[in-house]
């Protein structure tokens, strides 16, 4: 097959590309330039030329160089594709809009959905490639089913669960049967200089990791009140409800202790009234979760017993999941704490050969056990 390997400059995608070559595929590497070059602003402030082409590279040219070097070692052609405009519109703006709406987005998931397995895949198919290869830690067998990686600590099936059958049919994840340690060792064996490059953890477009400031720069100040869910008392103020996430405890800056003196957690964020509601830990427990935009990869069931996961690297709980009218309802068999609207709920079918992703949806709302307290999440 002719396959396009998306190469980030990290160790995983380099080894994935090398394995695709070993498997006999005709592999071409591409590095996706996703961020607008922060330097271009100052450079264009001094543009004396009438036809200055605006410099727009990736945020870290070293990543592009690392990817290119890996491609050279593997011996495959390598190009850089500029997807900065799409990434900005579909991932960054979406990220900001989601926070503005009181939800907690997962930008990696959105990037997979809109960029890697959409814009890039479409372009690849049009150019005559058969599939896109990435270094995600997940298994994708000949049955077309997405399963967890053997390395549960590194498993990324959660952020891939938005992919449709069609998208999965044109995807390859060669690392799913290996642990991260094995991948690193293999990279060293192959002479790939990225073998001991540290993992990336943070949101790639927030270089300093300060999400709150990133949002504040884009959304401005929108002061409001922090209100106790039980007594209705105002416990403090905030500069923007968008900076708060359901389940958050730190950084609340309450000016008064809660009436019962116990720690308070964010229970819900309501941008319209600029209200952040807080309450005790147990008020975060939810038992029913609703989701929009379901993507079902195993045929749409009406009701299924499965396990669900509601944030990246979060715990899984048994649940009864129902699909009706384009909406997912999950009744959790035991309460779960800190479920944030905007995150994905991913349903797995437990399997000794790797839990199988059966579907996903975007969490719109989460409710405590019937008859107990207020709904959790964006209201």
């Amino acid at each position: 097959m002719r396959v396009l390997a998306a190469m980030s400059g990290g160790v995983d995608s380099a080894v994935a590309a090398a394995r695709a070559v070993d498997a006999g595929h005709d592999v071409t590497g591409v590095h996706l330039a996703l961020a607008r070059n922060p330097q271009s602003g100052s450079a264009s402030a001094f543009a004396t030329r009438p036809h200055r082409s605006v410099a727009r590279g990736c945020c870290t040219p070293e990543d592009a160089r690392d990817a290119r070097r890996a491609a050279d070692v593997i011996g495959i052609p390598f190009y850089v594709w500029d997807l900065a405009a799409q990434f900005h519109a579909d991932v960054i703006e979406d990220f900001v809009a989601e926070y503005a709406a009181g939800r907690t987005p997962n930008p990696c998931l959105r990037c997979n959905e809109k960029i890697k397995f959409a814009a890039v895949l479409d372009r690849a198919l049009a150019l005559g490639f058969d599939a896109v290869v990435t270094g995600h830690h997940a298994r994708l067998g000949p049955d077309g089913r997405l399963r967890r990686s053997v390395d549960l600590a590194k498993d990324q099936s959660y952020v891939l669960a938005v992919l449709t059958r069609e998208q999965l049919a044109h995807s390859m994840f060669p690392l799913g049967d290996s642990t991260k340690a094995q991948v690193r060792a293999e990279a060293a064996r192959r002479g790939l200089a990225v073998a001991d490059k540290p993992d990336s953890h943070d949101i790639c477009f927030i270089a300093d990791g300060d999400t709150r400031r990133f949002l504040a720069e884009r959304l401005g100040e929108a002061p409001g009140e922090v209100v106790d869910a039980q007594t209705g008392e105002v416990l403090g103020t905030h500069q923007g409800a968008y900076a708060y996430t359901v389940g958050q405890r730190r950084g609340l800056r309450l000016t008064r202790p809660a009436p019962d003196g116990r720690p308070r957690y964010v229970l819900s964020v309501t941008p319209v009234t600029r209200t952040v509601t807080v309450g005790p830990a147990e008020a975060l427990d939810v038992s029913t979760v609703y989701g929009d935009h379901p993507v079902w990869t195993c045929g749409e069931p009406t009701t299924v017993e499965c396990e669900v996961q509601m944030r990246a690297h979060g715990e899984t709980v048994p649940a009864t999941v129902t699909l009706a009218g384009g909406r997912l309802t999950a009744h959790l068999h035991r309460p779960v704490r800190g479920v944030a609207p905007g995150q994905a709920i991913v349903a797995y079918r437990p399997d000794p050969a790797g839990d199988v992703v059966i579907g996903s949806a975007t969490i719109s709302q989460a409710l405590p056990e019937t008859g107990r307290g207020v709904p959790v999440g964006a209201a």
Partner: protein
Amino acid sequence: MAYLDHAATTPMLPEAIEAYAATAHEVGNASSLHAPGRQARRRVEEARERIAAALGARPSEVIFTSGGTESDNLAVKGIFWARRAAEPRRTRVVAGAVEHHAVLDSVEWLARQEGAQVDWLPVDEVGRIRVDALRETLAEHADEVAVVSTMWANNEVGTVQPVPELAALAAEYGVPLHTDAVQAVGQIPVDFASSGAAALTVTGHKLGGPIGVGALLLARDAPCTPVLHGGGQERDVRSGTLDVPGIVAFAVAVEAAVKGQQEFAARVGALRDELVQRVREVVPDAVYNGDPADRLPGNAHFSFPGCEGDALLLLLDAQGIACSTGSACSAGVAQPSHVLLAMGADEGRARSSLRFTLGHTSTAEEVDALVAALPGAVERARRAGAVRKPAAGRPTAGRSAAGEAAPPH
């Protein structure tokens, strides 16, 4: 493989490789006083004389450098500094809008770091500098202009500039003109003395010499402040131990290229014309950019409507055809060419362009290979150009208002 990227670099001539290897066996620093040093010096000076003779310069006007980029930097910055030091009101730089980045970025650096004012000379739709624009600029600002820089032939679209005319105009106003003749030497006649230029850039690897050796031809009366300071080699204008084998091979290549220029232009020009005609046959809506007649014989440059140049490049590369989008890219991200934009092309046309350049090793088979592969590649690239929207999948969330959503049922 079909190598259609001779403007990026062209293979070394066998006689240049031989001269390089023979000289590389010898020891000697051309600045040393002993016998091996004298031997090295003799090789360098012979090379200098041969280059001077081939390009219509005096030997003392040949300043060896590490290539085109260094020569351009030295000419633009060095002449600017020297002229401003002599006459502080001379703070203007005049340059063509389609210059190579070695000139373009040197000029912008002067503006940023040295407060230079810049006048960019516009070009017409084939990429030729408007002589009138230089006349107007000089009529208004001649006593403030430190240096003018206009290339001899454009590296992207191949258009030949009216350098003698521009240089005569500059001379009329007493302003030195530098010309980047990197792409011109060996392809069209280039004569330093009769051009009227005060400085001329030439590099080895575009004419059959080694990469990393070049020269700046600098008129005796052209003032120039050094960029590289050190041992004072090269008239004190350019320091650094001379690359003897490189310089010897460079001289062999310059001599051969200049001697063979007419034959090159006839043979390669005919092959290029065939390429252009056949590309137009197989892709009828291809737009031929640059001056159709007054251009480098090895250059063909097209826009392919609806395609992205980098997609075409990828597809042709996969079929063993090496060509270029011709645009500069730092991190490998294709930028729309400043040359095409200056010629009045819109960004789409600029991004859809591809450069095929022929050279001394080019064959009819290479043109055949391109013509065979191109239609399929164009069709594919067009399809890819049409699907740059996100595919199926759910609509982007978050557009819905942050309103009160009622709890379900």
